[in-house]
């Protein structure tokens, strides 16, 4: 009981995730700044931002629905924190695991987007509503290739449990190379999930101010920002766990450090991608996802099906 509570609240749960989220936000912002030839923020900037926002007043439009407006960020936060408990961090252990948890993780990662939609929609601001609709429209475009490429990897490992997938790829590290197309697709679609350039369409600053978050302020905004940070860590951790779980070959401490370095590499790749591409329009984004990413993901599925037959 105490162990369960510890893993939910302290490590690798809430507390660890909050700190990791803010640290990786710093890494992302600093890398983004350096790639753009700027100085970038000091290391404590995300913490300072977070604390400052906590101290600010909570404002809500009087036309907004208070229940939905206040609950949406909490739902988003809870679901991304839960994701992390199912990801194997060292050796092949995750805090909780069952057959089929990879499906649950994918759905938990969808909840923040839906929560943003609900929060934005019920805040009744025009910009927030437009942003919410865009967020959901975008969801239907990136979710399919994302699921397909992650499940393709699971298909090769012949298991729907993240832990067993990790064991499989730890035993056959070379097989990770087969999934390189899926890895690229996941990385790109993750940008859509995290609403970062070139897929930051739902919160396109120059068009609709801050999209679903336009009306949020104070503690709720702090929570939303933290949610997005943790979503980034959880997404990157999922990519690592599914596509190159090399950390599992080492002893727990070394393994965990290797895992963190891998997550760091994924976060840096995301920063690089958002530095070098301009924001697309929503129609272009959907075209791109369905015309290019979905066929490529299908190809990955087919490849893994054939490989599975050939390898067994």
């Amino acid at each position: 009981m105490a162990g369960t509570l510890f893993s939910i609240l302290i490590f690798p749960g809430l507390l660890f995730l909050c700190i990791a989220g803010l640290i990786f936000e710093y890494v992302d912002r600093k890398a983004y700044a350096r790639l753009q030839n700027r100085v970038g923020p000091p290391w404590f900037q995300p913490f300072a931002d977070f604390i400052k926002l906590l101290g600010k007043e909570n404002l809500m439009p009087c036309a907004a629905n208070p229940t939905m407006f206040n609950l949406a960020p909490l739902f988003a936060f809870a679901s991304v924190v839960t994701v992390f408990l199912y990801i194997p961090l060292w050796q092949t252990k995750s805090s909780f695991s069952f057959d089929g948890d990879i499906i649950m993780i994918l759905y938990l990662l969808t909840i923040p987007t839906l929560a943003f939609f609900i929060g934005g929609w019920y805040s009744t601001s025009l910009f927030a509503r437009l942003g919410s609709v865009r967020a959901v429209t975008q969801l239907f475009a990136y979710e399919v290739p994302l699921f397909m490429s992650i499940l393709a990897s699971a298909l090769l490992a012949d298991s729907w449990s993240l832990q067993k997938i990790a064991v499989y790829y730890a035993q056959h590290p070379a097989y990770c190379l087969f999934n390189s197309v899926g890895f690229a697709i996941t990385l790109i679609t993750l940008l859509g999930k995290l609403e970062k350039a070139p897929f930051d369409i739902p919160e396109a600053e120059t068009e609709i101010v801050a999209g679903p978050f336009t009306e949020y302020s104070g503690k709720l905004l702090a929570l939303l920002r933290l949610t997005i940070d943790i979503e980034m860590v959880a997404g990157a951790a999922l990519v690592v766990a599914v596509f190159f779980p090399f950390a599992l070959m080492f002893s727990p401490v070394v393994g965990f450090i290797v895992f963190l370095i891998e997550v760091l590499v994924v976060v840096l790749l995301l920063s690089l991608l958002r530095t070098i591409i301009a924001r697309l329009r929503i129609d272009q984004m959907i075209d791109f996802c369905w015309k290019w990413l979905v066929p490529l993901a299908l190809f990955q599925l087919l490849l893994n099906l054939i490989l599975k037959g050939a390898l067994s």
Partner: protein
Amino acid sequence: MHNSDRFKIPLGPQHPALKEPEGFSIALMGEKIMGLDIRLGYNHRGIEKACEERNYLQALYLVERVCGICSHAHATCFIQAVEEIAGVQLPRRAQYIRTLIAELERIHSHLLWLGVAGHEIGFDTLLMYTWRDREIVMDLLALVTGNRVNYGMNTIGGVRRDISPEDIAEILKGVDILEERTKYYIEVATQETSIIQRLSGVGVLTKEEVLRLDAVGPTGRASGVSRDVRRDDPYAAYGEIKFNVITDDHCDVYGRTVVRVKELMESYSIIRQCLKNLPEGPLTVKVPRKIPAGEAISRYEAPRGEDVHYVKSNGGEKPERVKIRAPTLANIQAVKQMLKDRYLADMPIVVAAIDPCFSCTDRVISIAEPKKDNRVISWETLRNYGIDWYTAHGIDFTELNNKFRKKLERV
């Protein structure tokens, strides 16, 4: 809140996409723009009237503050008109220095625009890169004039500061670096897929529409209208300098980008020629405080397009009337046309593509009777004037007028 499928969203007067206060009210259906209302006038400062209360030299410094970016453009345009009324022949060295500052200003304005365009399409890396390089030209301007903006270089009958051989060496060095960087930006703007995706086919304005709506500057030139005051009506030293007027036939935002980055290359060449052929001689000629009575219109190719100033003198120390037509006023009409059937996501870049300067544009117009005296015209007089005009052109409104009168009586 919005039961119909069409709703209006306000872009401005305060909005992150806008750098100045202006209002766009967009009727949207989904992501598609169905209608657009533009409202200017949030930043009217009464500069024209204020000029009438100052002497010519003071007015010059006031006019320079019409725009923060093309300040030299407005100052030069104004002073050219004053000098024309006074019948002053400018020393050649002063003409060359004015040209030099004008081109340095064009470089800083176009680099600024490229960065803003990048930001509007969500490509902040381009913004950071171009604005970093823009610092080079800002430093050069500070070196030559003492200021980064509002250079204060002009005075009636010449320029206020000379350029030393050391300055020339510095400028040439800076221009070399900028030319290298600009070549890179030309590559980026014409080859980067996501930029081309966002720019090409967006904000289309055909050649006919340009001529009808009278768009000026790079906006017009990007639709194949080869108009450039520097060539068509040379002022300062442009008559003695060789340069190409860049045109493009893409007719869209992509074309406007290409025109601007290529114009940068022309500016470097103009600066080099200016510095190479910089004549020796005095910087100013003496002009009396009182400018003789008369009026003049002066044209100037500002980075955003043709700038027009009208100055009327009554023989005193102060101008009797100053009229400023900033290039944005000519271009803003075209925005509505450009946004026809486009998406909301195109709105910021299409507005940015005319390189708007709304605060410079804000003027108040009061209509005076077209005859000699300066009374404010009454509605009845204006109406009769219209009827007379149409009758003279063979169009008769008598029947319509009768209907109108009957309608009025019923009310």
